[in-house]
């Protein structure tokens, strides 16, 4: 059986889902027998590669870099999986939507609430432009599967990866789809 080409991506989230991924502990050694991690915050590949079998996407879509990468992921992955509540629902990352668009959010964060040097951050070409509205991943690109949880517990992630390794459709139900 061909080794699974697996990627994990960190968009607008806290990396807690990736911490939970590491919480799979010794099963990671098992995973390494069946899968190549071809792109991930863990492996430092610079370009998102072609022909990826499955990509776990942590985080909501909050800026233009996220949106661009999400579209590239969709083009280059057979399976795109929303990994954790921020990707699935927007979660904490999307709480800023209540304040209005990017302008209102930056104004609140960097001007109204600033105690020293109020002013907008400006570093063209380095800082990605915020989107006016944070969205769950499936509002930006079609998503094939959802792993809810903040973060999803390690056994939940393992269950999905095991199915993918075995070439089966992953399935979560009951408490395994609980948000929060």
């Amino acid at each position, binding site marked *: 059986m061909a080794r699974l080409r697996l990627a994990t991506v960190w968009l607008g989230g806290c990396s807690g889902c990736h911490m939970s991924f590491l919480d799979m502990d010794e099963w990671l050694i098992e995973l390494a027998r069946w899968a190549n991690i071809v792109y991930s915050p863990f492996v430092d590949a610079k370009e998102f590669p072609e022909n990826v079998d499955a990509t776990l996407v942590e985080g909501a879509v909050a800026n233009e870099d996220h949106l661009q990468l999400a579209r590239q992921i969709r083009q280059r992955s057979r399976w795109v999986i*929303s990994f954790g*509540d921020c990707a*699935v*629902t*927007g*979660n*904490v990352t*999307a*709480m800023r*939507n*209540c*304040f*209005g668009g990017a302008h209102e959010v930056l104004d609140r964060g960097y001007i109204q609430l600033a105690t020293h040097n109020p002013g907008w951050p400006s570093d063209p070409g380095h800082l990605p432009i915020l989107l006016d*509205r944070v969205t*769950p991943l*499936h*509002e930006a690109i079609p*998503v094939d599967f*959802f792993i*809810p949880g*903040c973060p999803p517990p390690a056994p939940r992630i393992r269950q999905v990866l095991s199915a993918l390794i075995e070439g089966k459709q992953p399935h*979560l*139900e*009951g*408490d395994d*789809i*609980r*948000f*929060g």
Partner: protein
Amino acid sequence: MAVRTLTINDKLVSSPEGATILQAARENGIDIPTLCQLDGLSTVGACRLCLVEVGPAGRLQAACVTQVAEEMVVRTETPKLREYRRMIIELLLTERNHVCSVCVANHHCELQDLAVKLGVDHVRFEYLHPHLPVDVSHELFGIDHNRCILCTRCVRICDEIEGVHTWDVSGRGTNARIISDLNQPWGDSPTCTSCGKCVQACPTGAVFRQGSTVAEMEKDRQRLRFLLTAREKREWLV
């Protein structure tokens, strides 16, 4: 008391005249999901989760407010009902800001439990993200409108059990809000007795005890059961 015989999910059941489809179903071990309904309070049919199909045409009726009738044919589990119930939960989740991960009621929430039960692993509709206040002016309790689903359990328990009617609803549609007295801060309410029944009745993290943090807001529903038994049976069981 006259008895009515009806069919629920191809099973013949009998139920006293005047009972609702929900009561008849529960007495016969048939589970229908509910959210706004709470034993001991009047029924309002606000959440529509208990929709069932009635008659050969499968007419949709809320089981909590529809009385049983002779030879009535009821279905409680059909693909259409499952889809509608799931959709109701998804729409409730989009209408306010239900951020489970930072909610006082995380893992103790009836809305979250129903999402699990009805297979809501994501929401297919756009989130509205309204800007809503949190009122913590009361010295013991708080109300977070971000988590409110307008089930009106707090309104009914305050009015019908405590006999006070501090709570009511103002506005219409997505602008509807739970208000205390004449739309004033809860802490300024001259009528609130600080009994805390609304806190126990709330199905989500909308009405909470001050000082509760994420996932700490466990409800003590036994307290409500005690009041109900005392009222109905004159038994004060401690």
